[in-house]
């Protein structure tokens, strides 16, 4: 019964992409925000960005929507719109102060995630992007369970090059296998830094065990791309701007754009079967 409620709400969603990582702080939210901006650049597409990081909701700030509130209508909760074709939902919009902590155990978090999927009136959506917290716990199990009510194209897994990150990300890959979530591919973020002065490269997060490339080979998953560090990425996230628009000439921008295109191509190859629900 639960799933059928969700099914009717989500039936107008064509493609769903989960952004995961075993590891915290590798750039999931950054990537989710840029993926949303990248896909929404096509004004004919309707994009939805759902932030299910209940304890550390970064998406409102990154999308320049801090302080916005959620409004209710007859058809449910209204997402907060960045552009006409880009709507966002996050627990961040439900908190009245930036100091408010959401100190909830698992079941309460699951309840809110279900509400987000059941009660938000997304309308017709071409791409639903789901940003997740790090780990393999309540939020991840629940969202996979609830999203079984719709078609999930797959997961994009974010990592940084060093083994400390990879050792957590391998677990995430195994989690995806366990819950039968297809993996679209892996993004290696913070992949090298080029000094703006001397132009020499430093590996701040060294790929001592072969980085994402080796891991992808070993697990037979696709490496979608590598994104170098650029101080403007963090700046744009803090200011709620799209790095892709603010720094179009950055090598990081071309990497992100290539990756976004690959994800789009992957989704386009997996068409939803035409279903008439009577």
């Amino acid at each position: 019964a639960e799933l059928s409620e969700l099914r009717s709400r989500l039936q107008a969603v064509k493609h769903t992409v989960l952004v995961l990582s075993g590891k915290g702080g590798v750039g999931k939210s950054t990537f989710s925000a840029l993926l949303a901006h990248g896909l929404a650049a096509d004004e004919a597409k309707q994009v939805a960005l759902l932030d299910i990081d209940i304890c550390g909701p970064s998406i409102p700030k990154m999308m320049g929507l801090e302080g916005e509130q959620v409004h209710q209508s007859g058809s449910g909760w209204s997402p907060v719109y960045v552009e006409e074709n880009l709507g966002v939902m996050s627990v961040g919009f439900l908190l009245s102060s930036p100091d408010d902590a959401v100190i909830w155990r698992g079941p309460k978090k699951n309840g809110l995630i279900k509400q987000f999927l059941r009660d938000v009136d997304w309308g017709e959506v071409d791409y639903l992007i789901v940003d997740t917290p790090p780990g393999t716990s309540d939020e991840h199990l629940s969202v996979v369970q609830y999203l079984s009510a719709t078609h999930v194209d797959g997961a994009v897994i974010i990592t940084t090059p060093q083994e400390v990150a990879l050792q957590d990300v391998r677990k995430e890959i195994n989690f995806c296998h366990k819950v039968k979530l297809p993996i679209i591919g892996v993004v290696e973020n913070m992949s090298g830094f080029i000094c703006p002065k001397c132009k020499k490269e430093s590996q701040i997060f060294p790929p001592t065990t072969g980085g994402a490339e080796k891991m992808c080979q070993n697990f037979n998953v696709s490496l979608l791309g590598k994104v170098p560090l650029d101080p403007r990425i963090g700046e744009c996230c803090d200011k709620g701007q799209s790095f892709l628009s603010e720094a179009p000439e950055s090598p990081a921008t071309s990497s992100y754009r290539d990756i976004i295109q690959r994800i789009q191509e992957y989704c386009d190859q997996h068409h939803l079967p035409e279903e008439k629900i009577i």
Partner: protein
Amino acid sequence: ERTNLSGVRHILLVLSGKGGVGKSTISTQLALALRHSGRRVGIMDVDLCGPSIPRMFRVQDSDVHQCDSGWVPVYVDQDKSISLMSIGFLLEKPDDAVVWRGPKKNALIKQFVADVAWGDLDFLIVDTPPGTSDEHISTVEALRPHKLLGAVLVTTPQAVSVGDVRRELTFCKKTGLRVLGIVENMSGFVCPHCSECTNIFSKGGGEELAKHAGVPFLGCVPLDPQLSQSLEEGRDFIQDFPKSPAFPALAGIAQQILDGTSQQS
């Protein structure tokens, strides 16, 4: 009534609302610095989904053994001055995901608190996962009857991190956990080739937050490829790289913790 924590003089939590800011790194470096100042230190790693601590000491292949009083912590070396407990030691295969919901996580944390035979320690550092959820609530509840010194909060400089750490400060307030101070990690990068400093993750947010919240600011730790490399290899950065950019700040943080405890007694 004697418990497995009776011999532990101070318990310190390392928290952050935010993931990937360096909690495990700071826990590890703090332990190494305290060990070098002659203290016996334990680390309890309650990050059950992403346990980073074993590898940072190059003991990821160690097993946990039982004794009369419970589980024997894993010793980092012969002189047993640093001991560890982590779910990382309990997994059959390191790549196995621990896909547990809250209640199971809470049960293991209670065991870590009650059943590990830590013996006599000057400091027990508790490394946590990001957030303010099951692990944090259960850890504070389980440790409340014991000598909880307080919490060190780690952030990176940018607003997106500070935004989450503000919520962690609220968690500390609500649970009555004393905040020993804030560390601003990944604060600037000095190019090893030309010495130009770039603020890759911005600068100053941690210091401002400490001021705004009225808590001590413990210092800025710069990005340091030698530190990252040491963590990858499980090396003792404090011993091996005293001239590296991150060393002064890390040593300073440990000293402030020690000064704080000597003031107490």
